[in-house]
């Protein structure tokens, strides 16, 4: 059994690139790569072109994948121009090509029964949730969605996305759209109102943690897509680890590109950036540490 069992590497063409609020909605012609892409999976893209000073891949959640249509398989991304690599990507024009590896990582688990699901997205974290909503709808689930950001421009909520959800709630920290505040301010009411049985979330780590606290309080399942800095996206560099408790209760540093990005929220040891949780398997409290 291989790791990355369905991933392929391919030079793919940009079919479209449109600015939407703070983001770029980009469509790529990816052929068979679209075939196995599931909501929650991501792709890793080489940035900067030849003679670029940027040597690492950039990870982007798959917003939508389609293996039909005029262009054969397509994958769509929602790209925020954050630093130099994502900016480079967001500046690609139609017909430009980029080197893409995907689909990668774990996908959101889909319930076998029709349940009431609440989807929570922060910023571009909404991207994988619309594809997920479609799948859940097909399975007969109730789907409510909450999207939050600092301001309205940073909420990615395309019109067609609304079709797959029962309700959509927006929150902005500046009050520029929807409810003024954070997604977690509205979660408890929504959970009670819709009898939520599972929460899916994607966004900044601090948001995921806050969502998880609420999920635990209400004792409902919580699947979240985490985001750690990634150098390779394919499991070979060990930079993207997060501490996860396994079924036996042992905490191990696990690669979020392989065991994640989608993980069970209750397994995550939150707040452990810059420190290894005590009790982690193999944790050495020695002063001298090797850097590699």
């Amino acid at each position, binding site marked *: *059994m*291989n*790791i*990355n*069992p369905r*991933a392929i*590497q391919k030079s793919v063409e940009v079919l479209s690139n449109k600015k939407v609020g703070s983001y770029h909605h980009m469509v790529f012609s990816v052929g068979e790569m679209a075939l196995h892409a599931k909501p929650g999976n991501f792709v890793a893209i*080489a940035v900067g072109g030849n003679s670029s*000073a*940027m*040597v*690492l*891949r950039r990870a982007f959640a798959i917003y939508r994948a389609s293996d039909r249509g005029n262009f054969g398989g397509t994958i769509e991304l929602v790209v925020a121009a954050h630093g130099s690599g994502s900016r480079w990507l967001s500046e690609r024009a139609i017909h430009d090509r980029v*080197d893409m*590896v995907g689909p990668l990582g774990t996908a959101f688990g889909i319930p076998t029964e029709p349940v009431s699901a609440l989807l929570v997205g922060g910023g571009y974290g909404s991207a994988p949730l619309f594809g997920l909503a479609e799948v859940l709808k097909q399975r007969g689930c109730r789907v409510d969605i909450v999207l939050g950001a600092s301001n309205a421009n940073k909420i990615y909520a395309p019109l067609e996305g609304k079709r797959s959800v029962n309700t959509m709630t927006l929150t902005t920290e500046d009050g520029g759209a929807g409810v003024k505040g954070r997604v977690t301010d509205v979660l408890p009411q929504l959970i009670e109102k819709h009898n939520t049985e599972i929460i899916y979330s994607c966004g900044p780590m601090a948001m995921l943690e806050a969502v998880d606290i609420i999920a635990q309080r209400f004792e409902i399942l919580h699947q979240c897509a985490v985001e*750690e*800095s990634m*150098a*390779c996206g*394919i*499991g*070979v*560099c*060990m*930079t*993207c*680890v*997060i501490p996860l408790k396994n079924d036996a209760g042992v905490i*191990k*540093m696990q690669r979020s590109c*392989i065991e994640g990005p989608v993980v069970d929220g209750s397994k995550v040891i939150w707040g*452990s*950036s*810059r*420190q*290894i949780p005590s009790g*982690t*398997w*193999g*944790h*050495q409290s*020695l*002063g*001298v*540490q*090797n*850097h*590699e």
Partner: protein
Amino acid sequence: MSDFQSFDFRTKFGSRYFPSPIFTASGCAGSGKELSQFFDLDELGAVVTKSIAVKPRSGRATPRMAETPSGMLNSIGLQGPGIDQFLADDIPWLQSKGARVIVSISGETIEEYATLARKLRGINALFGIEVNISCPNVENRGLVFSCDPVASRAVIEAVRRNIGGDYPIIAKLSPDVTDIVSIAKEVVSAGADGLALINTLLGMVIDIDAARPKLAGVTGGLSGPAIRPVAVRAIFQVHAALPNIPILGMGGVTSGRDALEMIFAGASGVSIGTATFGNPTAAIRVKEELLGLLQSKGFKSLKDAIGVAHG
């Protein structure tokens, strides 16, 4: 595709032959399983494993990496399952795929290196041991073994005594020293059959928004094309001093041209590290480009090309 038949692409470390000189770099190819989705591992000269320790290690906290101009810093902290689980899980799988395996070992004391060597003894599948001596020596204020000729010698002697058999021992050196040639001479006289040059350079990035070091581990190892000129220099200097000792060159190789630079400087093989993060098939690309270059330059074998830049 190039014509393998008419060209002798083999390379040799100690008593072992490898069908191609392109290896993975320790810590940059996972367990092998991750890459085997992208190409067959037996296409490589050898898979060099992540440095393995006696006990399981969690590694360091995150952030563990920072991208830098034409390079990156890493601060993994040798995360791994420990030698026993590694031997039980990873080695049989790699063997089943036909990969030639070089196990990289790391210790915090001379005794740990000795233990690791003993555990590897008699594992027939092995094609060699890479001894990562760019590790802090807990018995000597954390001073990195390979920064100290005496400690470097002691490690290699301990491995040599305990390994038995004829596995090639390749000592991997740090470039962060005043005189890499003297360390190289020391480990060779202690019994190393080959040298791996270079490990990462010690570096650091400050996160100016947080006003603190970007990495949780404060410092990290600098790798990638940025360090290639330092690697080529180290290979050239060491090959000039020890022309009969095979060198496994590494540090920023991303193309066949880069690999050829190292071979002309004196490397018998070339490991691909950081380039794999940017491109999962980097090692295969380098292999094919290198073969094409060597043939187009009229070489009949890899051996003929090693060290030619020394004139």
